[in-house]
């Protein structure tokens, strides 16, 4: 039996003292993470140090992932080339597992502290292979590692005005608010104050990137994913480690650059939405909608991902889903939470007294949710909405359609709890048909979307390109992508001028 031993290497004597402190703190954090007993969090075995006092070497021990990491899975053709509805469902369940793991780690109330990862990438999502006898039905287990290297949040993110002291994460999966000199919108004077503070919303953005890559891999395989990654260029025209956003040269009222989801990413999402495999009523479509509308969203919610102290009615939302084909899997529509109604928070307000107020009762008469989705999820042992004893209320007059509503989209990036809720719905029993999980013939090879290399000349839409970095103006990324960037974090779903080629073809 194998274990993974991480050695914390100091570069010098000054580092040695720091590592000693870090080691103790991380061991304590990892121990707390173990208490979640979450199947999608790498199990921490123990911490030890060895050597003469003051000169010890420091180690952390974990269970060993026999499959490597998520990137290894994506490079493994055996799984992808033999997709079945069962395997698709299992893959999506794994994404859901990661969402619940993250939600659990972020949840102050369950641990007494909240954790954020701060460096989520496919490389620190480890892959535990399935047993041979289960390989027909399971892709294995994905587990988040290095959660102990996360920093505990014992207070609200937006009350910590000095910025994070955690070492830097991986730029590729970093959200725009991490970057210096990058704002969120053209009108963001108040909301940009804590921009340097690495919040739990960092993790949600990273999971948006990773989930999108997962979707690309599931549909287009390793080559498609490789093409996707190589096409996301940074301002210097380099593919790695270009983030999933760009910072336009235009500046907002705070003098900061305006961030938007990367044009190439938008292009891919738009074109995938046109692919028949992503038709309404499929798992891929629901995942795509979730990524583009709630995860890869530049705009932050007013609370900056700090859920501690939120009143229950504010924390709870309900899954709001993509619209279905008429007559197919209709369920009781649910309401998304009114986070948008939360006002600005005084950062000097002491903990834990501050709270938010939801819609006034006289404006929106409250009633308990009686949703089949909630009920089904509860029966599975985890209610998608309420985690607390008091009754969940919502407005009957604000019942949203199944599709992610405009209201929902405008709330800004989702919290991990909402991510989890949405994933709960996707894997719920009501979606459990083969057609939902796999709507295309996996035996036919699908080409990746082809970029329209000459479209710029065809459109003549020079205004749309003028604020793009040079790399995007010289044809490296199609203007079609650029035009899809009207609203930060929102994908224009109108028909792209160039239809991607999804025609099946021989290998």
């Amino acid at each position, binding site marked *: *039996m*194998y*274990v*993974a*031993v*991480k*050695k*914390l*290497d100091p570069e010098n004597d000054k580092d040695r003292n720091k590592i000693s402190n870090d*080691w*103790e703190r991380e*061991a304590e954090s*990892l*121990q*707390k993470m*173990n*208490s979640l*007993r979450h199947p999608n969090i790498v*199990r*921490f*075995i*123990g*911490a*030890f*140090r*060895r*050597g*003469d006092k003051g000169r*010890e*070497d420091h180690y952390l*021990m974990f*269970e*060993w992932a*026999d499959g490597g990491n998520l990137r290894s899975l994506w490079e493994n053709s055996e799984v992808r080339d033999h997709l079945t509805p069962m395997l698709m469902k299992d893959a999506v369940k794994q994404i859901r597992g990661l969402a619940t793991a993250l939600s659990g780690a972020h949840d102050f109330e369950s641990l007494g502290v909240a954790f954020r990862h701060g*460096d989520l990438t496919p490389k*620190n999502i480890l892959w*535990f292979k399935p*047993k041979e*006898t289960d390989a027909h039905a399971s892709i294995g*287990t994905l587990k988040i590692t*290095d959660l102990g*290297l996360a920093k505990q949040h014992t207070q609200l993110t937006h009350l910590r005005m000095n910025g994070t002291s955690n*070492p*830097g994460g*991986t730029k590729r999966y970093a959200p725009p608010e991490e970057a210096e000199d990058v704002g969120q919108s053209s009108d963001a004077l108040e909301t940009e104050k804590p921009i340097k503070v690495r919040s739990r919303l960092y993790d949600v953005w990273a999971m948006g990137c990773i989930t999108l890559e997962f979707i690309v891999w599931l549909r287009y395989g390793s080559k498609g994913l490789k093409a996707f990654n190589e096409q996301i260029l940074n301002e210097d025209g380099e593919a790695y480690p270009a983030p999933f956003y760009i910072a336009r040269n235009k500046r907002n009222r705070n003098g900061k650059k305006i961030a938007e989801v990367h044009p190439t990413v938008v292009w891919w999402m738009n074109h995938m939405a046109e692919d028949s495999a992503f038709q309404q009523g499929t798992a891929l479509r629901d995942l795509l909608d979730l990524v583009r509308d709630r995860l890869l969203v530049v705009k932050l919610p007013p609370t900056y991902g700090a859920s501690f102290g939120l009143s229950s009615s504010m924390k709870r939302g309900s899954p709001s889903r993509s619209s279905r084909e008429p007559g197919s899997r209709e369920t009781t529509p649910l309401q998304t939470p009114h986070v948008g109604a939360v006002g600005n928070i005084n950062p000097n307000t002491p903990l834990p007294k501050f709270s938010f107020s939801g819609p006034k009762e006289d404006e929106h008469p409250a009633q308990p949710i009686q949703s089949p989705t909630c009920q089904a999820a509860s029966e599975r042992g985890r209610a998608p909405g309420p985690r607390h004893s008091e009754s969940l209320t919502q407005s009957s007059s604000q019942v949203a359609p199944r599709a992610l509503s405009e209201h929902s989209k405008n709330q800004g990036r989702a919290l991990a709890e909402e991510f989890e809720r949405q994933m709960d719905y996707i894997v719920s029993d009501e979606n459990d048909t083969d057609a939902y999980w796999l709507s295309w013939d996996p035996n036919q090879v699908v080409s990746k979307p082809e970029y329209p290399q000459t479209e710029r000349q065809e459109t003549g839409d020079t205004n749309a390109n003028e604020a793009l970095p040079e790399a995007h103006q010289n044809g490296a990324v199609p203007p079609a992508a650029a035009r899809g960037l009207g609203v930060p974090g929102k994908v224009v779903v109108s028909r792209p001028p160039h239809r991607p080629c999804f025609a099946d073809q021989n290998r």
Partner: protein
Amino acid sequence: MAPLTNRLLMSVVESEFDGASGEFVPEGSINAITKKDIEEEFRDFENDAAFSDVVEFIHSKAKRLFAIALCGGIVEHPAFYDTMTLFMNEGFSDEKLPIKPWGSTPHELTLICGWSPLPKIRNFYKEQWQFLVPVFQVTTENQEDSNHDFERNRILPLTKCSEGFDSGSFGKVYKYKIHPQHLIDPENSVRSLFQETQALKPGSR
């Protein structure tokens, strides 16, 4: 060589951790020492009034002391039985291990049983590490002392399987094989361990 000595030494396995290699007697072999083994070793003293007490003391509190002295050839019969009796009388059990190296002040073993630094204490000091290999337990939130401090000479139940690979800015990760008797997983939470345990169960696939 006595059967018990032979059994213990035959069970020795290799360790290689972070540049240090060594051998150790696995936990299971030490735990497997029975009263009968001890009685057999001291059969010439079965008429001694304290015989059963000594056997009980060794079996319940001093298996490692007994095994180190036996396998290391630290003391020969009949002094071996007398030494274990002294340990019992002085309350010197496995809990006192590891012994400290000899120094300027009189060593505790000199005070208890008159051992001289050379060669007895030196040999005991060197031999003891093979029998003091830690058993890790998957940490839980209720575990008070989940962090371990090990001496430089401590042998760990690990064998390196791969060169390290970078793990972000926090050092390197190495793959190690851990001796199965040196990892306790009360909740079957470590997936690979659980699977292997299941695989070993009769009738399981």
